[in-house]
């Protein structure tokens, strides 16, 4: 099972990374979303995998590690906030440049 989750993490991270490297805002958004799925699962997996050992006091004798779950929850929320910001920024970029391209040729000398 651990191997399976590792493969999942690997695929999510890989696809995320690949999409992040595309030249448009849309695939970058998709890539970052995939990447954050991968990272969340990774973070989650750091506490080890347990089946039906929900960390509720009194239900299980040997519950799963709750801390990574709490961290992932925080990460999901933050990830959502960031994705939303990026999406709107992509729109803004589209509004200003009339394209959703993210590649360009200026070296930071853009005028005021």
């Amino acid at each position: 099972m651990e191997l399976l989750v590792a493969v999942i993490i690997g695929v999510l991270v890989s696809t995320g990374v690949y999409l992040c490297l595309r030249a448009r805002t849309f695939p970058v958004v998709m890539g970052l979303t995939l990447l954050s799925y991968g990272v969340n699962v990774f973070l989650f997996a750091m506490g080890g995998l347990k089946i039906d050992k929900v960390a509720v006091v009194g239900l299980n004798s040997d519950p799963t590690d709750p801390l990574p779950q709490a961290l992932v929850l925080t990460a999901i929320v933050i990830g959502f906030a960031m994705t939303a910001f990026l999406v709107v920024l992509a729109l803004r970029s589209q509004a200003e440049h009339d394209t959703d391209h993210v590649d360009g040729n200026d070296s930071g000398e853009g005028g005021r």
Partner: protein
Amino acid sequence: MLASAISLTFGLLTVAWLLNLYRLVRGPTLPDRVLALDTMYINSIALIVVYGIQVDSKLYFEAAMLIALIGFVSTVAVAKYMTRGDIIE
């Protein structure tokens, strides 16, 4: 006995899933894909419920309920996107 029924149901549901995925990939149109995704969500409800029976736990009920309650919102959003483009107007 119950265990084999559970396995059988799992098998049926996962095959259903595969068929959904097939339709999602195959399309040929966007409504088809959305429909496939919607169905996949609904099949997941069944899957979660059966999983609850399998592990004899009610902790997963809310997940299923949540899909039933708000899962359709994404389908509606995409459908509205297709007809009006603008989903909030």
